[in-house]
């Protein structure tokens, strides 16, 4: 059963579609290399942020002043659940031939993602309303850059989801669309991993310091 062998990280479609599975190896590995370089970007922004929290506040608000733990908890719940629902979409992709189920899970994921973006946009607006704008201090610049970068990634993931949904409607579950959804799954799960670092070291560390 060479077709069932695991060829790449992420959900392997294996015997469900052996030909797509064979093609997936190099494509998925290439995407992993991109994801890892993306992770480096986030890590450096986080390092900059952590340096700025200590001596970059310029007399302005400190991390403890601007941390809203309740909002962070709801955002975390939304993003974590959306990671799980994307997992369900991946299972539908692998084991079910009906695209309806796949559409439904992708739609749930997209709604959770939209909810996350909406809440975070409200957080940003609230901060800006209190005068805590990026140009106030180095700390706030780092704060908005780091969270804004993650925000943009999630927004890009949602746009990508819309594109594959259209392709799914037009062409059905063809090989190229399958491989795109599999890469989108990796991207989406990775954004949740980045969020773990953000809620731990930005929100929780900010409130606990």
């Amino acid at each position: 059963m060479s077709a069932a062998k695991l060829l790449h990280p992420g959900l392997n479609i294996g015997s469900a579609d052996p030909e797509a599975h064979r093609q997936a190896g190099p494509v998925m590995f290439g995407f992993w290399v991109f994801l890892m370089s993306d992770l480096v970007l986030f890590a450096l922004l986080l390092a900059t942020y952590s340096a700025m929290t200590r001596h970059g506040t310029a007399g302005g608000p400190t991390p403890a002043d601007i941390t809203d733990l309740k909002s962070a908890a709801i955002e975390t719940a939304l993003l974590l659940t959306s990671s799980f629902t994307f997992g369900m979409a991946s299972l539908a992709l692998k084991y079910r031939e009906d695209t309806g189920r796949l559409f439904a899970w992708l739609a749930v994921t997209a709604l959770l993602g939209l909810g996350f973006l909406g809440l975070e946009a409200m957080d940003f607006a609230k901060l800006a309303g209190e005068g805590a704008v990026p140009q106030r201090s180095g700390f706030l610049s780092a704060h908005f850059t780091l969270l804004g970068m993650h925000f943009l990634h999630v927004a890009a993931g949602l746009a990508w989801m819309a594109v594959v949904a259209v392709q799914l409607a037009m062409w059905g579950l063809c090989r190229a669309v399958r491989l795109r959804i599999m890469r989108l799954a990796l991207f989406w799960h990775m954004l949740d991993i980045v969020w773990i670092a953000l809620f731990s070291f930005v929100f929780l560390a900010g409130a606990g310091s």
Partner: protein
Amino acid sequence: MSTNNPRDMQRELRSYVIGFVSAILLTAAAFGTIGLRLVPSGWVLLVLGGLALAQMVVHFRYFLHIDLKKSHRDDLQLILFTGVILLLMVGGTIWISISQHARM
């Protein structure tokens, strides 16, 4: 094309559920630690770091299906190498800024 194997599906479904439940527990532990002020402030970063690392491992294992199997070795090495790079860059940045802070 559709050689659907219900056992495989059950196994993979269970993997996602285990991952989701453990991730919820670890997240709740992190928020609880801070919300209820369970640890002294000197320990906050250490505890948060530990919980975050554990949760990242859970996500990689159960959502991204990275494990110690031979066929995943390349990818695991890629991730671990990225980990080393991150450690060097983030650790180095923090080290330098602490040192600079001490001199000012």
